[in-house]
């Protein structure tokens, strides 16, 4: 069994079959099953990238009584199609209900419950750490171990950037905390199923998307 962290694409490539890395071993036990292991519900969806997408989604989550940990939306390589990732902390059993409810939204193309599936889950974090000339080097060293990067340097602070799953980020924060964390920002997790399974549309499109495509075609000609 491999740990999810050991399959980080930075070290092992997209197939996720590489050996354990140093970064993983320092963030805690690696006894989890492949995939996300059901710690939190993770539901991913391919959606039409409409202006009302986020508000309609959040409204659904609220009125259907989900306690949501994070909602992220980002564009995909296909024009006007976005990917939505919703996670519910500590509620893996809610994933199926969440998937069913999301399917009712008319801009949701396909839904995938990744909770128990082999998947890669990552979150980007920016952490502003308090430093003095002496501790700056220590922070830089820790960044190497955790594969973080210093992306901003000032007299009294540095901003550290890292990506990872919740456990790795928690581990990193733990070692940075003694220096003093001035502020931080997290993107919320995004996820993709591993290997060859790909979430694809089934040709159904709203009038909104059809109109966008018409406009694109007009502009191209």
């Amino acid at each position, binding site marked *: 069994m491999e740990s999810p962290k050991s399959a980080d694409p930075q070290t092992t490539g997209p197939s996720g079959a590489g050996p354990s890395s140093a970064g993983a071993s320092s963030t805690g036990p690696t006894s989890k099953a492949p995939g996300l292991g059901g710690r939190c519900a993770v539901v991913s969806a391919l959606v039409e990238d409409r202006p*009302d997408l986020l508000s309609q989604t959040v*409204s659904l989550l609220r009125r259907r009584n989900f306690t949501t940990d994070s909602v992220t939306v980002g564009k995909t390589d296909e024009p006007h199609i976005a990917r939505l990732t919703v996670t519910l902390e500590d509620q893996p059993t809610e994933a199926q209900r969440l998937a*069913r409810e999301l399917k009712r*939204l*008319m801009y949701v*193309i396909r839904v995938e419950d990744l909770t128990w599936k082999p998947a890669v889950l990552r979150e980007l974090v920016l952490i502003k750490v308090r430093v003095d000339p002496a501790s700056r080097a220590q922070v830089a060293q820790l960044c190497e171990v955790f594969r973080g990067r210093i992306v901003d340097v000032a007299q009294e602070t540095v901003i550290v950037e890292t990506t990872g799953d919740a456990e790795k980020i928690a581990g990193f924060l733990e070692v940075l905390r003694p220096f003093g964390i001035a502020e931080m920002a997290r993107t919320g997790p995004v996820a993709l199923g591993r290997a060859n399974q790909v979430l694809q549309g089934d040709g159904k*499109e709203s009038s*909104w998307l*059809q109109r966008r495509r018409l406009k694109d075609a007009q502009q191209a000609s």
Partner: protein
Amino acid sequence: MSRTGAQLIWECLEREGVDLVFGYPGGAILPAYDALTEYPGIHHVLTRHEQGATHMADGYARASGKVGVAIATSGPGATNLVTGLGTAMLDSVPMVCITGQVPTTALGGDAFQEIDIVGISESVTKHNYLVREVDELPFVLKEAFHVARSGRPGPVLVDIPKDVQLASTEEQWPELQLRLPGEVDLDLDSKLLDQARDLIGAADRPVILAGHGILLSGAEAQVKKLAETCDIPVSLTLLGKGAFPEQHPLCLGMMGMHGTAASNQAIQEADLLIALGMRFDDRVTGNLATYSPHSKKIHVDIDAAEIGKNVAVDVGLVGDLAPVLVRLLEELPSKGHGAWRAQIGMWHQDADERDILRRARRGPTLMAAEVMDALWRFTGGDVINVTDVGQHQMWEAQYFPHQRPGTLFTSGGMGTMGYAVPAAIGVKLARPEEEVWAIVGDGGFQMTMCELATAVQEGVAINIAIVNNGYLGMVRQWQELFYDERYNQTPMLAPDFCRIATAFGIPSMRVSRRDQLEATIQEAQAHRQGPVLVEMVVEQHDAVFPMVPAGADLDAMIRRPRPDFEQA
């Protein structure tokens, strides 16, 4: 050819086959109203309140099977739609509401009569739209109608800023293949059908739970065939009334909180529930933990999110009920359930002995149950009832058997008081050849009685029966049973309803004696030119029985006590 956004609205309605809309004008929707004069094929019913417009559109949609349309202006006009949208949402009624909005240039600045109705209505619509440019309008409107009537029907709101209505466009009607992402593919797994057949074949104590979906799908014939082929008793939800003939020997009557004892006991004792187009609402199940504990469950619904939502099922079939049942019936062997039927017969008999109708006729005052029974007998039973919400709604459901589909309309899911009178106007406009009764309590009537003026102005010949017990009766009943008889804020002063009717120019009569019921009902029926109002003065302290207290076990019914009611 260039057209304005306002013209596009009406053109779209014409293209969708709409010839009747309900609405109320105002500043932000004025361009649309101004353009309406160019479209004589569309009749506009001016309501007295926007809520009335939504309930009329709702009643019209339920009775016609078409999409109901309501129109309002921005701000308060739009917020007044919310109750009607919620009513339609919870009962799966296809409806399109069009609202005016302040110009796009003023959006977000708290302009006069600006309100974020798209934000407000998100949770009471199947989908909603804010149209930001006129070129979008043909796409959005076409899609709105499609969304409203496809799959599980529901209401859609389209918010159109004033400048979008005024702007012109060359945009043609799009040739759209509308198969929206959220739509469910309805191809069935034949393995699931086999599993369902096996469960039906193995069951000794099956019950069909017949819901609104049967009526929406037009699956009444298939349900009847299923019941008769396999000798399965049928229990109805409130909105399922009419889906199966209630005088059929297999019919158990309504289920749930005020359902028949036979229904609820059969459900609790059953070894198979076949749930058809119903959603295991809490008013139907009572305590979920003890609901029908011995049964396997088959659930057929067009909305995948309903399968397993409240009750775990053994076989879930997502699909349109009529074709699903056609396939299920293809290879279904016939069966008999004599012992099960005999057991149910005994429960029926016990309930009959406790029935208020057996005893009521001795007392001095009219019982509401008698009124329902009289309406059923003296109208011949073959009329359309539109009921409001409360005790009278339950008494109607208990004492007025509906033999054919589409003869009872009521706000089931949302329980919207004030629904009956405006909805009945919409129902009558959809089915003018039918006799339509609005049955309403004295409380609910006072909520929307302004729509009497609409009925008069449009010459809508509905018969309004006010069942007047001087209380918010259902709330009073809960206070009696669960709040130590503290009748706080439930006794209600009512105006002289007959004089109210007179003020609107509506003929009216009042009846409080049982020997006058027949003559009064027949007198009401004789008025065919416009609305007529009958006030029925009934016993003030009666309660609806049987009753399963909210959240209690379904078989923990409070029955009507055996001692004579009148002594209490």
